[in-house]
Every structure is written in C-alpha cells, then in structure tokens.
C-alpha cells in the first residue's frame, strides 16, 4: 500500500493473545514454586526468564516496573527473603522455595503500608514510574530500622532512580512513615 506522499505503508500485525500464550507455554519447561505475597505459587516458566518477566507477564503483577532491565534504576525492586533486589537481574529458578514480596503485597487487608500512605500524603509521586520500586526499598529499610536518619534513608534509596521529583519529597515521605510499630512495618519473608 502507498500513501498520499508515495511512501510505502507497512501494516503491522500483532500476534493475538492466544498466539502469545501458546508461545510462552512452549518455552515454559521449568517447574517453579515459591511464596509470593504470602501465598504459595506453582507455575511453569522458561528457566532463562527473569523474575521481572515472570511477575509481569505470567502472573500479571504489573506493579513492579522496569526501565533499564540492567540493575541500574531500581524500578523493578522486590523483596527476596525480605531483602530488596532488582527483579530484572534474578532468574526465576533462583527464587525456588524462597519468599518474594512485590509492591502489591505490602498492603495488609485493606490498609496500605505506611510508606504508601505517606507517599500519597507528602506528594512524593509525579509520573509514578519509580514509585513502586522506591516504596519497596523504603519498606525494607523501615522493617529493620523504624527511626532512620536522613542519611540512612538516602543510603537505602541509593539504588532507585527518579527522573521527576528531585527526591526531596520522597525522603520526606519515608521519614514521615518512620516510627510506626514493628508489626505494621513487617514485610514478611525474612530469613
């Protein structure tokens, strides 16, 4: 097909959802079981895919974001046995038998995690892309240290990039959330 200016137009055909599902299933040769946000999960994965892919593509937990996929930006941060790690660098078979908590797993019943509350209250969110990763990193810090100094907050968030806010309100939000009792702050899964 040629358009008005004489340039060849490309028609782009995307594979249907069923076709995508079929492709993914064919690659899924590895049986994986782990604890995700408090529940045990069993599923088949491609052993070379990352936890980031498994969470988003197979389990449809899209709270975990990805930007660089090279460990640089922290937007894919999740808790592995209670510790913040970049899900884009973890292969899925590595989490066999372990505990993963994503941003979706931080709220308890109908109550948001205190860090989530304070991010809203302090206006620590602009475009929001970095927010889930930052909240997970902050929650990991507060689970151990309920009264961090500004310096400790900065250090804990060192591996998370935000291109919008300039970090001031993010740090305010974490300090604001600090001081809640340990039970509220517990993130689970720690070894």
């Amino acid at each position: 097909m040629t358009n008005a200016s004489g340039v060849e137009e490309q028609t782009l055909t995307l594979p249907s959802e069923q076709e995508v599902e079929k492709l993914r299933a064919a690659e899924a040769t590895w049986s994986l079981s782990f604890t995700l946000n408090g529940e045990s999960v069993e599923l088949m994965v491609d052993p070379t895919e990352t936890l980031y892919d498994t969470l988003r593509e197979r389990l449809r937990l899209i709270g975990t974001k990805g930007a660089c996929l090279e460990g640089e930006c922290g937007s894919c941060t999740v808790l592995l046995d209670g510790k913040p790690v970049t899900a884009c660098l973890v292969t899925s078979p590595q989490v066999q038998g372990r505990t993963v908590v994503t941003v979706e797993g931080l709220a308890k019943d109908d109550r948001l995690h205190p860090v989530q509350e304070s991010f809203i209250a302090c206006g620590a969110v602009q475009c929001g892309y970095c927010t889930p990763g930052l909240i997970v990193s902050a929650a990991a810090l507060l689970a151990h240290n309920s009264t961090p100094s500004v310096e400790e907050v900065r250090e804990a968030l060192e591996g998370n990039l935000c291109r919008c806010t300039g970090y001031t309100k993010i740090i305010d939000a974490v300090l604001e959330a600090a001081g809640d009792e340990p039970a509220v702050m517990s993130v689970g899964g720690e070894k």
Partner: protein
Amino acid sequence: MTDTLYYQPKSVDEALQIKAELGAEGTFLAGGTDVVVGIRKGKLKVARTIDLSQVPGLDGIRRHDGFLEIGAMTTHKALEQHDVPAALAQSCETVGGPQIRYLGTVGGQIGTASPAGDVSVALIALKADVELRSAARGTRRLPLDEVFVGPGKTVIADDEMVTRVFVPLGRRSDFYKIGKRDAVAISLVMAAASVGPAGDVAIAIGCVAPVPLRIKRAEALLDARGLSDEAVDEAATIAREDCSPISDHRGGADYRRAMAGTLTKRLLSRLREVTPVKAKPAESSAEVA
C-alpha cells in the same frame, strides 16, 4: 546428561560434576549481576547456565586459623554487615546500590575478573588467597592477584569453581574509590592498601591496567624502607609508572595514571597515621603466597 540448558545443582559436588561435563559451555550463575546484564547487553553468550542458588554451604563468613574464610556465594551486603577488614567493608559498600549488594557475590566478582572490581582490588591489597575446586583434582589455593590475567580472563580452569576466599586477619587497611557519582557508579580509579603486623605493605589499584593491579615493586620498596615520606613518594611514582591505563567514556588515561599515584600516597599516608591496632597476628600468608 539431558540436554537442559539450565541446571540447578543441589550440592557442590553435583555443581562440579556438571561443570566438568559442560566445560566452557557451562556458565555459573551466582548473583547474576554480571551474567544477566551481560546476556541482556549481548556481551555475554551463555550456552548453559549452572545456577548455584540452591547449593548449600557456599556462603558464610568465619574466622579460622588467622584467616577470615569467605564462601564464594557470600554477598557484598553480608560482608558489609559483618566485622571484616576496613578495606573489604569499604569496597563492598561502594558496589552498586543496596539491591546489587544483596545479589552480587564474592565468587561472582572474582569470576568476572573486571579491572574495575572494587572488592577484588580490596582483597588483593589484603593479600587474600582464593580456593579453587574441581571434581577431578580437588582444591588448590593461590593468591588472588595471580588469578587474573586480563579483562574477563582468569587462570580458573573450565572444570573449576571458586569455593572460598581466605583473608589474613590483623592487617590494617584502607580503600579509596573515585567514581562519577556516589552510588551505582563503576569506579573511574580505585585503590586499596594494607599493612601487616610485621609492617609489610600491600597495594592494589583498579581501572589502571587489564587486571586489578598489585604494585609489587612499590611493596618491595616500602618493605625495605618503611613508610617514610620519601619512600611513600617513591611508591607513588612507581604506581604511576607501573600502570597502563586506557581512556574511555569514564575518564582519560592521563588522569587515571595521575590518580594511581595520588591514591597510593593518600592511602599510605592514612595507614601511617592510624595507630596500629593490636591485631591478632595473621598466620603467615607466606606459606601460601
């Protein structure tokens, strides 16, 4: 053996057997911070992955016989949180951000053999040894600086793995890194130095040669003459002479060469100032060095 591309051994012996069968085809996966990034960037071709995450007994830190024994799967974060020599703790603190330090391991740092490996530089300056193990030949132990032969190249055989690192206790040490920013930045230049209970000095510099560079000529001079002002100045000159830096997007060769001298002088001056700790003397590392 089946034709799987991904292996998850449950013991060191099983891991070594798989590695022996796969040889260069098999790539160990520890924290994945280099392997996964390398695959993603298209810089690393991995035919078969040997995932060490389910192998018990490869991590952990213990004091034994005058040495700190560090398991290959010990993470940078675990070292940072443990009572380890100053240069080692400081080098671990500067690796990536927290998420990278919770994943990245000592074994992976050595396997990567990067001239910019902060922890490798600190370990060399602490006169650390590495234990390598294979199914066929058991273990051998050699000084870490003899392991690296070029960027990404080591003397580790195709059927071997790093099992432990031995750091002699009782050495005073210090580390200094220059990077583009404070966090998640690969070093532009970095260096570490240590002084042993008997006054022997070790110096290593990163990002100034194809391997983390031990400055043996300067060490010999300082061992003979002590840490006098003149000897320290001469050691700094030797450090500048013995390095062979390149220019890249992080910095120029001239700058790196100059900094090799500056950091050598700074570290040695700082080590001289600190009052010697009453350290438990290390069992002589000469027997293995």
